[in-house]
């Protein structure tokens, strides 16, 4: 299973929504009562054993940004 499919399953499991829909919507609409993004980030970190830096978390805007970030961390 490729990384995107793996992440999609995780997103469905945690948020009950598709990855392609969730990430851009969350990044664009982050507000005072947005908890979904944090839940997804924590789930990804636990599943892949990685940790995002504050800068990475503030700059991810779409699924590709997220995939690139995870790939670079897994490869490191």
């Amino acid at each position: 299973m490729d990384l995107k499919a793996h992440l999609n399953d995780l997103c469905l499991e945690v948020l009950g929504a598709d990855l392609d829909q969730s990430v851009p919507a969350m990044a664009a609409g982050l507000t005072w009562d947005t908890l979904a993004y944090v839940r997804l980030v924590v789930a990804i970190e636990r599943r892949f054993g990685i940790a995002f830096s504050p800068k990475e978390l503030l700059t991810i805007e779409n699924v590709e940004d997220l995939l690139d970030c995870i790939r670079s961390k897994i490869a490191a």
Partner: protein
Amino acid sequence: MPFNSLSYFLFLPVVYLCWYLSGEWVRPWILLAASLVFYAALRVPYLVAALLLVSLTSFAFARALGQSVSPGRRKLLFCCGIATELAILAGLKYLPLLGGVLQLAKAFGQRSPGLTELTPLVSIGASYFTFQALSYLIDVYLELEEPEPHLGYYTLYLAFFPKLLQGPIERAADLIPQLKAHPPFSYDNLRFGLLLFCWGLFKKVVVADRLALFVDPVYSDPRSYTGLPLLVATYCYALQIYLDFSGYTDMSLGSARIFNIELTQNFNSPYLARSVAEFWRRWHISFSRWILDYVFRPLQMRWRDRKNAGTAAALLAAFLVSGLWHGAKWGFLIWGALHGLYLAASVYYKPYQKRLHKALGVEKSRLLHLWQVLVTFHLVSFAWIFFRAATLEDALYVVRHLASGPGGLWSGFLLAQGRFDPLVLVLCLGLLLWCKKSELQLSRMPTALRWAVYYALVLAIFLFQVPASTFIYFQF
């Protein structure tokens, strides 16, 4: 130079004429010179010096950040830049805090607006341009934005006079490209800008200042009142601060618009919000967005392992910062803490609330919608008590005596206001509501009717204005 002063009514047309008659390449520098004159007109020379110092230092740190590739050096430059800007702001706004704990305790205990009375320092506008410089440095550090290569444009971004004293807090990426652009003359922008300015002036001098006639007597001596007068004054203050600040924002947006510049809209019917979170998406939007992006989100992500508790703590911290931004006074701190608590509590109860509404089948009920708007308005109004009261003791007195019946002085309080002001107030509030509800589009009206509206608006301002007063948010 407040927007509702005669000097501004002369200043704006003169600047516009100079700007309009000059060549495109001179226009930004006319605006910069006008902005510095506008700020210098406050007759507080150190404020202009502080503005130039913030411009120079943040510009230099951002340039150095842009040229540096070493992560360690970038982090050092970033920390130095942020510390410099915060030190300048603290020097202007919180200097008495450094004076010692005893002085601080004395200030919090006094029947005074707080530390501002202990110091001759005036910091009008400083919070706004410093916050813009901070956001610029953070964005450059995070590589969300390229450093601006031209000091003149950058200084104009911080100093642009329509938003210098009270915001909106603009992002460099939104404003600098507009300052550099040279769009052709637009009659629509000129007309819309002037109309928006007049509309804001009407909100301020006719409605907000008239509401102050009901608020100020009560809040300047709350212990002389019980019950209804306190309640009426509190509701009136909720409306006054909204109309005062949104009136200012309209005047700010209108002033900028005549120069073909669109500033951020700061308000979107905040008292129609169905939750406190929604209120903060509609109230002082540019400031709320700043706190959200640069305080709440980083903290929420830093404390993400603590799940809901981390988010709740980040909300509390963000709103305490928001309270402190308004000044060193217990009332502001409690106001911020209350909003933080409202939001932190919603992190826990919101999932259950959703399930309850679903189980009762009232998710789309209009009655539920109305109920939520009412509850949110009352939560926000309750917090305003601490924001408005001169001291913590006064605020606690108002809270304890809000529900103590009609109050012996109720009729006397109302009679003291006379009949004229309440009547004008009711008519004006009705007009504001009607304009909002009908989404009045002046541009679609026949010319004669449109001009009749313009004259009516100007006439109303002249006939019904309350003697000049300053804007509430000037103090921040």
